[in-house]
């Protein structure tokens, strides 16, 4: 446990360094509670994707489809809400007599979509024995294409604004936006599940040596099915947050989310070879790009620089991690 934390010390330092640098450069424009809440809300969807992908990568798998699952879930959630909240004419006039039914059912439909998509990924990996890379590369296209077919390729209009006021802009305890609260709960549960439970233990064991796990009687396929389903479910949850934040299902906005989530996990010390990783690392790995983007915008730097900086951080993080690991194994 300690060594795992020490391994991610480097990225903690980077995040702390960024926070200090932008605070000095920009003062209160950056260093304020409101701005930090903005950063966290912006990062909340990616955070959920990164948490799910972390479990998958620790099993030595990969999930390239999380961005597509997010989009498909948000389209199905949004369309369900629109369809159930009133007649066509009513919703086009922005009246939603049945939104008390439409919104919860839409949320459930979105979550179920994520769950099913993840389950399909799991089946492809465990039953058809496809490598996770190929399986989820395929479903990346299938899920996104399905979302585009359903939505006609455009953002879903006439989503009841109540989802925005009730979920996205609503603040718990007077300050905590719901997307951040969801993120905190998911991160908390994920930390316990990964580091304290049998579920987490099996996740590491399968990534470390699947054959060894099989020989001691662990049902490897069943566990992988659960892990991919979890990743899909969290992507579905992120899709709901997306609908709530933007009051629509944005079909074109998440094509790079999968890579962003994977690089967040990898920056956070999760090994693509499996068996190693932590939720806390992935949280930090999510916030480094988020803070960079926010700081660059406030500082007036072209936001494209953020992509360059993240690429460098990713390469550095993996390089340092590899060196540390080979040093450890030489002992």
């Amino acid at each position, binding site marked *: 446990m300690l060594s795992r934390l020490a391994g991610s010390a480097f990225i903690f330092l980077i995040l702390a360094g960024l926070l200090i640098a932008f605070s000095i450069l920009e003062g209160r424009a950056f260093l304020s509670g409101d701005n930090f809440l903005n950063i966290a809300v912006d990062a909340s969807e990616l955070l959920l994707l990164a948490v799910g992908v972390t479990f998958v990568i620790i099993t030595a798998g990969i999930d390239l489809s999380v961005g597509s699952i997010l989009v498909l879930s948000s389209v199905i959630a949004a369309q369900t809400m629109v369809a159930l909240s009133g007649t066509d004419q009513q919703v086009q006039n922005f009246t939603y007599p049945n939104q008390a039914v439409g919104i919860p059912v839409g949320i459930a439909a979105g979550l179920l979509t994520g769950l099913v998509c993840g389950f399909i990924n799991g089946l492809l990996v465990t039953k058809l024995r496809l490598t996770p890379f190929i399986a989820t590369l395929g479903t990346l296209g299938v899920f996104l294409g399905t979302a585009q077919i359903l939505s006609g390729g455009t953002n879903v209009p006439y989503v009841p604004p109540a989802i925005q006021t009730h979920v996205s802009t609503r603040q718990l305890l007077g300050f905590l936006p719901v997307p951040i609260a969801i993120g905190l709960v998911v991160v908390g549960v994920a930390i316990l599940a990964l580091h304290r*439970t*049998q579920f987490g233990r099996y996740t590491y*064991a399968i990534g*470390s040596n699947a054959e*060894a796990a099989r*020989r*001691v*009687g662990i049902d490897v396929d069943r566990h992988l099915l659960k892990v991919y389903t979890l990743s899909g479910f969290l992507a579905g949850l992120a899709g709901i947050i997306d609908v709530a934040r933007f009051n629509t299902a944005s079909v074109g906005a998440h094509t790079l989310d999968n890579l962003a989530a994977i690089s967040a996990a990898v920056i956070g010390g999760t090994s693509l070879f499996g*068996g190693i990783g932590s939720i806390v690392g992935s949280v930090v790995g999510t916030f480094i790009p988020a803070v960079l983007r926010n700081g660059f915008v406030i500082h007036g730097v072209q936001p494209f620089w953020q992509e360059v900086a993240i690429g460098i951080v990713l390469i550095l993080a993996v390089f340092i991690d590899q060196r540390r690991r080979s040093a450890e194994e030489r002992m």
Partner: protein
Amino acid sequence: MRGDEAVLQVRGINKSFGAVEALKDVDFEVRRGEVTALIGDNGAGKSTLINVITGVLEPDSGDIVFEGERVVFASPHDARERGIETVYQDLAVAPQLDAVANIFLGRERRKAGILGWLGFLDQQRMREETGEQLEELRVRIPDPTKPLSTFSGGQRQGVAVARAVMWASKVVIMDEPTAALGVAQVGMVLDLVRRVRETGIPVVFISHNMPQVFDVADRIVVLRLGEVVAELDPEEASTDDAVAAMTGSLRGGERE
């Protein structure tokens, strides 16, 4: 300590893979408190026999009698349930997990009550039991809570053996446990084998290495081309006898 009571007997086992007869009418016995060495050249059928005993392979014909009762092991899980544990040549440990996690892999202790139902692990109890087990077998590792990838080959083997012994109530099978080890580490593993025997649990020790076999075994069973060709007493037989039986140049120490 030594007794003649057979814990596990296989009788008249046959197993073919296509045209290849891997095992021909093999009789083999594991007795309480004994280290039985199983030796033979590559392709002699050692692994096939072990796979039959541990439920990995189903024999074409023949019986397995375990504690006086005819049994069928349909899977390795069945054999483990009965208290037969195997230390594999490739160790089958998870290098990124620590010794505690490896020893309890698949048999984790959970916390009591609702937390346990939710799958929460009782880490402290597992740490304590691991410490006791390693202590009893005198396996010395730097820190049971460090990943095995930081351990030497011998230390990893020590953990693999400790795991097997911890869960084996009846028989421990070791498939070439010293193949990848240095001299000092081999000594440690052979000591471990003796200590397991002291606990009364019989050991099946598979090896190519004659000095090691003669060092540790109470009885040596020689396989050649799928048949048991000799059963030797290491007190009386010599290494040459064993090699001769293995290679078929001399039918020494013939079975009755």
